[in-house]
């Protein structure tokens, strides 16, 4: 049987950077094939080549044994390849149906009466289990529902090969379960599914085969049953990962660093209601929750209360000592992508590198170089524009900038989003180190693994309220996941 998709010696260069180098692997028809690798390993690039967004510099792609050459996603879609991007491509003010039909423009399908089109899409949705209210506006739908619309867009074009880029990143654990059930249904109907992910548990649970990318190369491609999480992790990073710590709590109960009392705030779209939370020295408190449940409001209240008018924020926030934050959205709030690394290191600590009116540029550059070495921020070039670094390295700089200022309180918001496994481990260890030195940490994250690995206790934020609290001894994924989905 010929493979549904075959990569043959695909290479892709961006300037000097080898994003893909001699990638070869094949995907069996009617299978779920996971593509795993750290950020920047080249997995998205490879999928974008398959979907016609990039053209390879060398090599070829075979669909069902036939070489194909796509110059744009339109060609790919015509060859029945569809892709769901990590960031959805939906027109939010329009209905689900409008969004799906928009995709059909120019096809014979588009000539059918609207009623009939809707009927057909309903049939497809029924058949595969992707239920959405087609007449609802996209902006009123949950992230999980929006994802279903994206998948319906592809299915309505009768695509045989589906590429999903990090589909579970934005979903609640419950939604992930539903998605997996539906994907298996698609597989049983003969569809071929490629799924990019870095969550190895999901790979084991869902996929038939898995291909591992590392540093632009394909390092392994095998049947999922012949491998294990430890195996895959080692392949992805190129070395064995250390096991998470087993730690005895050393919380300094006598020293409260941050206390939040009866905090309510309203930012229009998102609200907070009656939040009470204390953070002690040497304590990490995790705030779990699917994004959009008030995390942004909480962060604003802590970092920038002045920007909230008196009536939109009530309650009390008390702080003992200095606070530093890792912003939840690095590119938006954390860095100056077009500026060199050393200027990014300077941001927010200008006073430490000024003498009179002037910047102590030489000292700043020396210090940045030192930091880049201790935090292993690559490439070791402090003059490079920060945007040219990988996500993991950018985040390491953000972490380094905050932690080298020795804050008493650390607000770590999504500290490892879009960061590769090696950097995740590093950042987690840095957070632990700061904690051991006496800092209190408020960890806001939507990654259960991260929350469970770091926190002394976890509170769950749902629709602006703290709906549940778990002690370290009671952490378990199912009940946490339930609480995050509102089912406490």
């Amino acid at each position: 049987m010929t493979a549904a998709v075959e990569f043959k010696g695909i290479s892709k260069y961006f300037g000097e950077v080898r994003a893909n180098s001699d990638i070869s692997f094949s995907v069996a028809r009617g299978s779920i094939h996971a593509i795993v690798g750290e950020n920047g390993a080249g997995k998205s690039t490879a999928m974008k080549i398959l979907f016609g967004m990039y053209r390879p510099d060398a090599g070829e792609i075979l669909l069902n044994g036939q070489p194909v050459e796509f110059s744009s996603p339109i060609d790919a879609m015509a060859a029945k390849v569809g892709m769901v991007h990590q960031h959805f491509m939906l027109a939010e003010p329009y209905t689900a149906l409008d969004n799906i039909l928009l995709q059909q423009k120019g096809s014979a399908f588009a000539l059918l009466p609207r009623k009939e089109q809707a009927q057909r899409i309903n049939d497809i949705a029924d058949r595969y289990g992707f239920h959405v209210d087609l007449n609802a506006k996209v902006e009123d739908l949950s992230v999980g529902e929006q994802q279903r619309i994206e998948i319906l867009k592809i299915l309505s074009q009768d695509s045989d090969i589906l590429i999903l880029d990090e589909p579970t990143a934005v979903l609640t654990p419950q939604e992930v379960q539903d998605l997996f059930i539906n994907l298996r249904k698609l597989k049983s109907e003969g569809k071929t599914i490629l799924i990019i992910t870095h969550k190895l548990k999901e790979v084991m649970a869902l996929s038939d085969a898995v291909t591992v990318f590392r540093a632009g190369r394909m390092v392994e491609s095998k049947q999922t049953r012949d491998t294990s999480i430890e195996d895959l992790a080692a392949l992805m990073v190129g070395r064995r990962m250390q096991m998470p710590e087993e730690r005895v709590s050393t919380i300094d109960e006598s020293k409260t660093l941050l206390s939040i009392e009866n905090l309510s705030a309203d930012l229009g779209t998102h609200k907070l209601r009656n939040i009470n939370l204390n953070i002690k020295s040497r304590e990490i408190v995790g705030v779990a929750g699917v994004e959009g449940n008030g995390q942004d409001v909480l962060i604003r209240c802590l970092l920038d209360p002045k920007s909230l008018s008196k009536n939109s924020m009530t309650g009390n926030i008390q702080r003992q000592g200095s606070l530093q934050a890792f912003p939840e959205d690095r590119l938006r709030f954390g860095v100056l992508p077009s500026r060199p690394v050393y200027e990014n290191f300077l941001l927010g600590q200008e006073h430490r590198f000024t003498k009179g009116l002037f910047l102590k540029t030489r000292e700043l550059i020396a210090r940045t170089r030192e930091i880049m070495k201790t935090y292993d921020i690559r490439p070791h070039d402090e003059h490079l524009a920060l945007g040219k670094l990988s996500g993991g390295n950018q985040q390491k700089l953000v972490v380094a900038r905050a932690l080298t200022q020795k804050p008493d309180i650390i607000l770590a918001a999504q500290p490892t989003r879009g960061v590769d496994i090696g950097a995740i481990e590093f950042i987690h260890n840095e957070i632990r180190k700061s904690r051991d030195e006496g800092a209190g940490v408020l960890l806001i994250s939507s990654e259960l693994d991260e929350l469970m690995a770091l926190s002394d206790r976890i509170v769950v934020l749902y629709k602006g309220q703290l709906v549940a609290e778990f002690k370290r001894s009671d952490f378990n994924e199912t009940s946490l996941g339930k609480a995050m989905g509102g089912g406490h």
Partner: protein
Amino acid sequence: MKRIFGFLLGLTLALLLTLFAGENPWNVFTILVRSAFGSMYDLGLTLSYTTPLIFCGLSVAIGFHAGLFNIGAEGQMTMAVVTAAAVGVLFPQVPFPLAPILAVLAALAAGGLWGWIAGWLRAERGSHEVIITIMMNFIAAGLAGWFALKIIPNPESQNPETALISPNYMFKDYDLIARLFPDTPANASLIFAIVIAVLMWIFLWKTAWGFKLRAVGANPEAAHRSGISEKKVQIAAMTLAGALAGFVALSEVVGSAGQYRIGFSPDYGFIGIAVALMASNNPLGIIVSAFLMGALHKGASDLDLETSTITRDFSRIIQALVILGVVAQGYWEWFKHKRRKG
């Protein structure tokens, strides 16, 4: 001066256009060069255009560094020039070294105020600075014209201009550059413009304030999170931009003409945008690009006399094509960068 290719491309295209008028492009080019640099008189005129272009280029550039597009240099400059003239006409008794300083400080305040208004509206009300500064240009033109013609008109002339300022305000007697280029408006403020450009370079790249300004330009939200007040920076940047444009009063009123003449500016404020773009907003590059644009402007002025079909308005065409060339080069670099990425 990274954008020199764009400049040359625009110039070449403009010269090729003269073919349609039946001229020889090479011939037109030699006229341009001769007219811009042919004699001390020509060079003096070129330099006298260079000075205000440096100031306006710096004005636009500091806006860009803070992420703001200052199209209002023309209006800020106009307000400053008419203010300097007003001070010189209304307070003739002020003694010499103090007088020009007073006039220039008043001019900077007026230009700064004009920039501040746009900056404040941008920061506090969210009004886009492009729209505001364009409107402020019209207001400045109207206001300055009314003031010049109704309040302090020149009684000895039919021209639309203010009365002459008192001689105490002028530094001609001490001006070596003016002596070097007799009969031209070239004056020592050129040196001053270069000094200001160097100071601005130091400010932007060597001081914490300059860094904060550039940080706001690079990513206002990240700057805000790091504790920089992006509103204050935006207001300060527009005020500085206005003051920089206001320095034109130094070369125009105190340095040469001794009055505000309506229409004295061949759109310095707008050519300043091209000057800044050509230099990628680098203050030191702006000195060079202002000189090139000044030369073009002066060069084109002799086309009237020396060719049968081409008028001095041709300099506008050259300017337009040079701007397009510079922008095209920027776009081309961006496009190449993007293609490399994907």
